[in-house]
């Protein structure tokens, strides 16, 4: 599968943060998530959405991210921290 573009990755990170799979970037240090955290978040989203857990932003994952949905997060923040 073709690698996701930079734009797709940033949209993916926004989406994962918005729906509770990634903690928002630390406002104080401005530190961004690590690749490992991103991979785990993508895997969690794929499992929650019933997709194959590849850990990468593949086509099916990007398509599900574009599906109309409810605004509420899928995981409560504490939940996503414990999952991680």
């Amino acid at each position, binding site marked *: 599968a073709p690698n996701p573009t930079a734009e797709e990755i940033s949209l993916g990170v926004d989406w994962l943060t918005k*729906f509770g799979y990634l903690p928002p970037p630390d406002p104080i240090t401005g530190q961004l998530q690590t690749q490992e955290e991103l991979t785990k978040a993508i895997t969690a989203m794929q*499992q*929650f*959405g*019933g997709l194959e857990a590849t850990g990468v932003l593949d086509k099916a994952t990007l398509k*599900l991210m*574009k*599906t*109309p*949905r*409810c*605004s*509420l*997060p*899928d*995981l*409560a923040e504490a*939940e996503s921290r414990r999952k991680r």
Partner: protein
Amino acid sequence: HAQAVTKWNKRNLSWRVRTFPRESHLGHDTVRALMYYALKVWSDITPLNFHEVAGNNADIQIDFSKTDHDDGYPFDGPGGTVAHAFFPGEHHTAGDTHFDDDEYWTFRSSDAHGMDLFAVAVHEFGHAIGLTHISAIESIMRPYYQGPVGDPLKYDLPYEDKVRIWQLYGVRESVSPTAKPEISKTDDHPVLPDLPENRSTVPLRRDVPNRCNTHFDAVAQIRGEAFFFKGKYFWRLTRNKHLVSLQPAQIHRFWRGLPLNLDSVDAVYERTHDHKIVFFKGNRYWVFKDNNVEEGYPRPISDFGLPPGGIDAAFSWAQNDKTYFFKDHLYWCYDDHQHRMDPGYPSEAMLWKGVPSRLDDATRWSDGATYFFKGKEYWKVMDSNLEAEPGYPQSIARDWLVCGDMQADAPEPAESSRTGGRSRQGHHDESRSESEVCSCTS
């Protein structure tokens, strides 16, 4: 999956639709009925009771909002996020439910682009009473929109969702095997409109006006055919002036997108430069491409430079390709190409001599003449001059709508007496035929 940590301590919850979708073809009553049935899905199996209230203190305040609406969860236009709700709690927003007003909300529609309002409402009210998202594919609480869930009157919650809500609130007495069946009077439930796709279930139309002794709200030439509009109905004549059916068709079933609660129109005309059809009612107008309303309508008639109060008549005059609007004694001349009103209007001096004021409508016709309609009579003006032809006015019913002189001359009964579907002289039996209307857009 995560289980919600909050739930309502009280059992009787109030709800209210505070704002409605602004550009949806779903009427207010339909939206309220869908909310009622979406809440009933949950109250049928739990001890929770929902009742609709007025005012701003409902536990579950329902709003249709766009983009940023000051709750930290901005919507994002069509698609993307479509709705959200707040979990139970002490906060004043607890239980509040918001729908994205940029979505195309539908009901019993096969439109792939539409968002089934009932399905999304059931999901959001699950949040409003304490449930979170789960990943189970068949659950209504899955975060992704999965299309319509069928008829609200027959919808049955997936077992996964029943178990989770029973864990929060227990089982409603009437559901438990030992309880007596709960008798709810059917007339307690709001009526959902009948199935738009299934004509055979449309109740017999008792309020059909009698074309032979009535005046018309609007008359227009559209794609070469003549349309006579009266109340919620219209009659259609082919290019060679043959009435398609003695029985009228319902405006809403042909012209898709007019609000269901629209009980009549003021004026209709077809724009010459793009052949779109413009409907006027009060201070609003709709533009149709073929028989589907375009996005973004209704809009205010101030777009044309017309004052509030609506119009009586509108028609495009082939002579100068300008559009004329009429209201009481005044008329305006509008340039559809330049999208602006010609200077010097409104004017009181009627351009066409011998034609009365306070028209019902006017239209051009395929013989090159312009016809002005008022009451049960019409005037003909040839394009080559600006005066009504001698011998006019003539009878609309006799010359356009296949009525005999006796029928056409019968006094127009008061509207109410006609709701019984029978005019005083009992003429309508003769003039009604059971033939249905076949409509084809091209």
